């Protein structure tokens, strides 16, 4: 506080107070509220689209994995070999699909109003 007192200067203070100005735009608050509302609407719209994207992506991933499993099982009959290229690709693609879904969800949370 003492340090601040060292700079107390009535003359400069009165000058600064005289020079203080106000926003001349009388509709500033209304314009800002409209902008904010527009930004909320935009975010809601993006969130809705993202949520739809996630839903379709999830369905496609599950269907893809199911089909791949069915095809692989038929092809390999009953001799399951974990090092078979199809099994490895299926595993990698499944992990990638789950990760992408997780990222989309995270992105949606970030964007959500």
């Amino acid at each position, binding site marked *: 506080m003492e340090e*601040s007192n060292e700079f107390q200067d009535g003359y*400069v203070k009165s000058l600064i107070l005289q020079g203080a100005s106000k926003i001349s735009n009388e509709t500033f608050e209304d314009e800002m*509220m409209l902008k*904010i509302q527009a930004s909320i609407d935009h975010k809601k719209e993006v969130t809705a689209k993202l949520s739809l994207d996630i839903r379709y992506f999830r369905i496609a991933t599950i269907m893809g994995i199911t089909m791949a499993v069915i095809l692989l099982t038929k092809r390999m009959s009953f001799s399951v070999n974990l090092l078979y290229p199809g099994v490895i690709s299926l595993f990698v693609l499944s992990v990638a699909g789950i990760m992408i879904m997780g990222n989309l969800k995270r992105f949606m949370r970030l964007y959500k109003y």
Partner: protein
Amino acid sequence: MDDHYIDRVLSGDVEAFRYFLTTYKDMAFNLSVSIVKDDHYAEEVVQDAFMKAFDGLASFNRTAKFKSWFYRIVVNESFQRLRKMKRQIHPITMDSKVEYLEPLDQPQNSNEYDRVRTALKVLPAKEGLVLNLFYLEEHSLKEVGDVTGWTLANTKVLLHRARKNLRSILSNKKTIKD
């Protein structure tokens, strides 16, 4: 008071944000004008700062004052705009001396408000900012540091220099180094 309105905004009452607009718009405008030196740009900066504050309200740390947090946004936005303006408008004269202004040569022709406004616009951005924060907003040196990110020693030096320069400009004596 601020906390009450923050809670309302966060609970979905968007209209409650009008309180912050009404309370802080003029001070934010003054801070921004002291940096960008242009009313039109300053108003744009204030708009951007309010948008950022609204978007970031959920992440606002309640241990600090809303005012300081918001002014910091305004200051950062203003310096960002200033850098952009310098790149766009004055690519050659970035570190040139700001020449002394003409309205103060004939103080009898302009009123006191215009004289002071012009003088404040001639002051370097940081000096105008520190004067506004300290004398108009009545922030302590520490609070000025919180808003601007300057050290206490730096704030003192700037405040001292700003007072000296303002007096010099108004007594129509010299040019200022940016």
